[in-house]
């Protein structure tokens, strides 16, 4: 079928409408509708990836209008991969979410699923589109849905965190929009490939320079690159856990994808690294982001907040890798989009199970958790090892590429920051393990030997199965990272 690219985006959109209607009339239908919509979308994404691997880039014209007039979906190896990541994480998270949603937002479950689907639609659209203005609109759909989601969470702090997120998010989106305006002023086109063709003759133009800086600033704000990260920790830790599990692995990664897409497809690596020569400054910025993220994570006393700052640190890895100016760094950055999405998803799945059972995840609440929730903790440990970068988990391989890239570019400070932040992550996670493993349960066990008498109280089976699958996929992605690099990333970069 030729319409798979459109199907990826449109199915969740239609499902969102239906789930929204169902929320008013027959609320228990919302969940199956969402599940079916995302399953179809995931299947289509898989088909598209296979098609792109065998027969090359797909150019899908919306409603048959030819570019540059019409909106085109350009799907090459990079975004086919990201599409599959987004669609499958959204689907599996939905399976794990049923119980959390029932517990946290039971009165508004139908609307939750409708907004969830819209959010996924936005992310998939951002990934699939080949049009600069369309990209802006879809980024705003994604952001709007996440504003509402954050407000649905913590009743005391959620709305305020969400408002602050809106202020910063709007500035980011507006900068991007202004950048697109400058590009349009100079090229008269909005189609990415078309703009790139026209730009190749305009490298000296200061308008293009301004456009480039504005676009990058906007995207950096949206992806929470240090020092523009202030909104992220609050927004992620106060949102409902079912949403935190999807926004944490996907939102920032998709924005990194957008940055790489703008760099490679629209402005061109020659322009960025040879004409502008900005590489060094941005790699330094990424280095600061890594160190700052890791250090701020050390200061946290709440598991969700700590993970949020680790995300800030991971963004530094990807931005640094992409701006290294060589193929190894870019390979590392793209591989890290996949790996980091999986790792963060695995971590937040475990946190989701903990929140489901414990309600709060301050470090004090985690005492004795290994005895109480052994399977959840097993998944958590595996994901933590992956974040630290222990082989054979996937986190090791992308860090390896990033370090190789840093050495090739002579950016030793970046490599050092990467190693230091890995060590800090190790300290952080072992601190958590220690609390969970050695410290006794806080109450109700008297003087008895607590370790042998803790009743096992696991999370629901749906969460455990998804958590197990994702944890296994961390190792699988690690073992097959050579295949992924050779079939997807290297052919894309050539």
């Amino acid at each position, binding site marked *: 079928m030729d319409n798979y690219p459109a199907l990826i985006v449109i199915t969740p959109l239609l499902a969102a409408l239906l789930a929204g209607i169902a929320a008013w009339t027959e609320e228990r239908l919302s969940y199956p509708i969402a599940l079916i919509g995302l399953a179809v979308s995931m299947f289509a994404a898989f088909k598209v990836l296979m098609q792109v691997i065998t027969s090359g880039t797909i150019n899908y014209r919306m409603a048959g209008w030819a570019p540059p007039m019409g909106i085109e979906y350009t799907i090459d190896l990079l975004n086919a991969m990201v599409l599959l990541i987004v669609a499958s994480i959204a689907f599996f998270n939905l399976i794990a979410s049923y119980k959390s949603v029932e517990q946290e937002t039971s009165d508004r479950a139908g609307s939750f699923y409708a907004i969830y689907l819209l959010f996924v639609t936005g992310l998939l659209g951002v990934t699939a589109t080949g049009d600069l*203005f369309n990209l*802006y*609109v879809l980024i*705003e759909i994604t952001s*709007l849905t996440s*504003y*509402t989601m954050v*407000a649905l969470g*913590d*009743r*005391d*702090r959620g*709305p*305020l965190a*969400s*408002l602050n997120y*809106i*202020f910063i998010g*709007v*500035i980011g*989106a*507006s900068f991007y*929009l*202004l950048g697109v*305006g400058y590009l*349009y*002023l100079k090229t008269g086109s909005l189609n990415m490939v078309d703009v790139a063709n026209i730009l190749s003759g305009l490298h000296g133009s200061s308008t293009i320079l301004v456009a480039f800086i504005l676009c990058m600033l906007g995207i950096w704000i949206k992806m929470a690159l240090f020092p523009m990260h202030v909104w992220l920790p609050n927004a992620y830790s*106060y949102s409902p856990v079912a949403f935190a599990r999807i926004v944490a692995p996907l939102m920032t990664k998709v924005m990194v994808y957008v940055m790489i897409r703008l760099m490679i497809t629209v402005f061109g690596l020659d322009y960025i690294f040879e004409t502008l020569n900005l590489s060094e400054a941005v790699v330094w910025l990424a280095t600061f982001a890594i160190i700052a993220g890791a250090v701020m994570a050390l200061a946290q006393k*709440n598991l969700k907040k700590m993970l949020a700052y680790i995300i800030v640190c991971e963004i530094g890895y990807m931005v640094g890798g992409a701006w290294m100016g060589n193929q190894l760094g870019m390979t590392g950055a793209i591989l890290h989009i996949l790996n980091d999405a999986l790792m963060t998803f695995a971590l937040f799945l475990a946190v989701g199970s903990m929140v489901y059972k414990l*309600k*709060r995840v*301050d470090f004090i609440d985690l005492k004795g958790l290994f005895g109480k929730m052994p399977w959840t903790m097993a998944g958590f440990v595996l994901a933590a090892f992956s974040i630290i970068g222990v082989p054979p988990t996937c986190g090791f391989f992308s860090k390896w590429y990033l370090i190789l890239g840093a050495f090739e570019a002579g950016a030793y400070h970046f490599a050092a920051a990467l190693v230091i932040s890995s060590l800090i992550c190790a300290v952080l996670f072992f601190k958590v393990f220690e609390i969970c493993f050695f410290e006794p349960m806080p109450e109700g066990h008297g003087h008895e030997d607590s370790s042998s008498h803790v009743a096992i109280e696991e999370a629901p089976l749906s969460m455990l199965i998804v958590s197990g699958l994702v944890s296994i996929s961390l190792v699988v992605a690690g073992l097959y990272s050579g295949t992924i690099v050779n079939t997807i990333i290297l052919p894309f970069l050539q």
Partner: protein
Amino acid sequence: MTDLLTLIVAKYNYWLYVILMMIGLYAMIAKNNLIKKLVGMNIFQTAIILFYVSIGYKRDATIPIIQNAHGGNDTHAAVIHAVDYINPLPHVLMLTAIVVSVATFGVAMALAVRVYQRYQTLEEDELRMRLVDIGPEK
């Protein structure tokens, strides 16, 4: 000095948008009241919308509606020069951007109402104090 003046006068519309944008940004950063911040946000977005609207303009051009395009009385006169019509595309784009900004503003207002219901204030410093009173976070 005269160079600068001519530059400002020749492109006065763009300078106005820059000023508007800065006013909006200032309000978003410096104001203490959440509603004032929201107003700043709206000014900021409007400045960009105005910028787009004005890049579609051409001197001595008219609105892009082609007379007799569907074979009116005087079909021979319908030779079309793009120079005679302003560029409608940025305007159409801005219709979408206006929808986006209205949606954002709506969500933000709804959230402000929520914040007010919970804390009885919209001043940021007071909110910060209330948050401290609530105690350790979840």
